């Protein structure tokens, strides 16, 4: 029902739009705009305000903790995005190659079920597993590798990989379902033709299936990256950025500046930088995607 001959009726349209746009204006647009304004104020606690121009941004550039959080973010992204993009792709390929639909159904169920476990439960269970006397260290001690046992989340050297590892084995989740739908939408004729030309399984995967899944790969890489940029609640629960700020990310730094230290203006400036980063990355990925296709 797209098209120019749809009903012209601004009045009635307004009635349909009002509930959604009302909520959206009050709880999304208004806060977004006031974040932009707040970024130019110095705030003290929740009350005092004073216009300071770009001071917050200047301060941010000279803030060692901010740069530390950027460095941590890069490490998080480097470790997370490739495995989150490729893991589910491999999982989907394996399921797709199975001959028995029944087996595929059960493996899929087993790979996807953690999506349904409350995120906080997964995080807290892993916290237990990583504990000083938790199962991971128990296994290491039993295997005679006791020297490697440690408080995984309490050691600056291991905290970031340990948080990323919570996604192990990285083959499931919603991303798997997206890839699987992608595999199933590849035209059979294409696969048959490639096979007639003598393409082996590997060749088929690289030359036919991967190109057909380009869109999905791009979307998932972007979603994964935006997730790394924005998510901080798991880190907040596990370490609150510690030890020694080794797992502090910009989003968590924003959260703590605002709600622990009461620097709402500074937090908002950080948020604006984060917003620009997200927008920039999205546009970049979009452009790359367009050029390729």
């Amino acid at each position: 029902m797209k098209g120019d001959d749809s009903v012209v009726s601004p009045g009635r349209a307004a009635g349909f739009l009002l509930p959604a746009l009302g909520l959206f204006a009050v709880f999304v647009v208004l806060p977004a705009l006031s974040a932009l304004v707040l970024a130019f104020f110095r705030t003290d606690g929740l009350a005092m305000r004073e216009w300071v121009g770009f001071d917050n941004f200047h301060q941010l550039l000279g803030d060692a903790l901010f740069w530390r959080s950027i460095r941590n973010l890069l490490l998080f992204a480097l470790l997370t995005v490739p495995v989150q993009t490729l893991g589910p792709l491999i999982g989907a390929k394996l399921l797709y190659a199975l001959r028995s639909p029944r087996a595929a159904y059960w493996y899929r169920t087993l790979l996807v079920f953690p999506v349904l476990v409350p995120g906080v439960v997964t995080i807290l269970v892993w916290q237990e597993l990583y504990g000083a006397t938790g199962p991971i260290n128990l296994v290491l001690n039993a295997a005679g590798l006791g020297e490697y046992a440690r408080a995984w989340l309490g050691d600056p050297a291991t905290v970031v990989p340990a948080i990323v590892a919570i996604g192990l084995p990285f083959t499931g989740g919603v991303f798997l379902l997206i890839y699987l739908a992608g595999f199933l939408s590849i035209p059979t004729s294409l696969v048959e033709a490639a096979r007639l030309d003598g393409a082996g399984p590997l060749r088929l995967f690289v030359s036919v299936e991967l190109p057909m899944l380009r869109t999905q790969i791009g979307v998932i890489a972007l979603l994964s990256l935006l997730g790394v940029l924005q998510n901080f609640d798991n880190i907040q629960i596990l370490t609150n950025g510690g030890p020694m700020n080794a797992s502090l990310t910009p989003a968590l730094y924003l959260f703590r500046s605002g709600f622990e230290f009461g620097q709402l203006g500074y937090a908002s400036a950080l948020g604006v930088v984060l917003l620009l980063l997200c927008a920039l990355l999205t546009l970049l990925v979009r452009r790359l995607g367009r050029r390729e296709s």
Partner: protein
Amino acid sequence: MKKSPGSGSSPQWALHGVLTLLALLTALPFALMLAMSAKDLGQLTLSFWAWPSPIRWENYWFGLKITLHYLANSLAVSGAVCVLTLGCAALAAYAFSRFRFLGRESLFATLLIALMIPSALLLVPLFLLCREFGLLDTAWVLVLPQTAGALPLAILLLRSFFDELPRDLFDAARIDGASEFRVLWHIVVPLSLPVFSTVAILNLLSSWNNYIWPLLTVQSESLRTLPLGLAFLVFEYDLKFEPGKVMAAYLMTSLPLLIVFLFMTRPFVKGLTSGALKE
């Protein structure tokens, strides 16, 4: 699942081997949760890997008792957010898809831009706003902002689906003199159930898991949602030395959705993939 044409050439036993390994790895942390939940501290320290004997059934009873109330809260909040989101988004998507009005596309573009805003950016001003409105520590503060935040994606998905519906249906309905609202309710909604289920599932999962917003805005114990209740559990009930009980509580709170999932895998998977990323 459909029989796939990609099968045939690779050795099936190797596939089964790898997939079984992956499934085991996926389940491992949850299996450990299950194993730990059946023991008390003594059993956990002295015989971590042994079969629990006796099984501490009281852990599960305890876990259920202290979390039931958080579960009920989460169910109410997520249900309300989902119904409100679907209702408001359906109306708006219908208007975007069916009516022509000034500024339609720029309004729609504004919604899309909102998808890029990091939620962390909104937390501070949103908190101040809700405090100004006197919403803090009420059920409203849990429902309204989450609904508003979910609307852009919901409207985007619904509209792109509505746009694809055949026009003739609507012309016929219009000639019959049906009101726009009736057309939406009796024609568009029944035809769009796949995309509605996609939106509903995505919406439920995100509000079910939301931790930070309730943490900031809710003080009363009586309003705590599941993630919040679980995060405070150890502290609140002094369970530092009762990992078995804690794990049992985690297990009990994970069960409801898992059981639903077990019976509804097909619609769930279909819902997540069919409406959304069709290209």
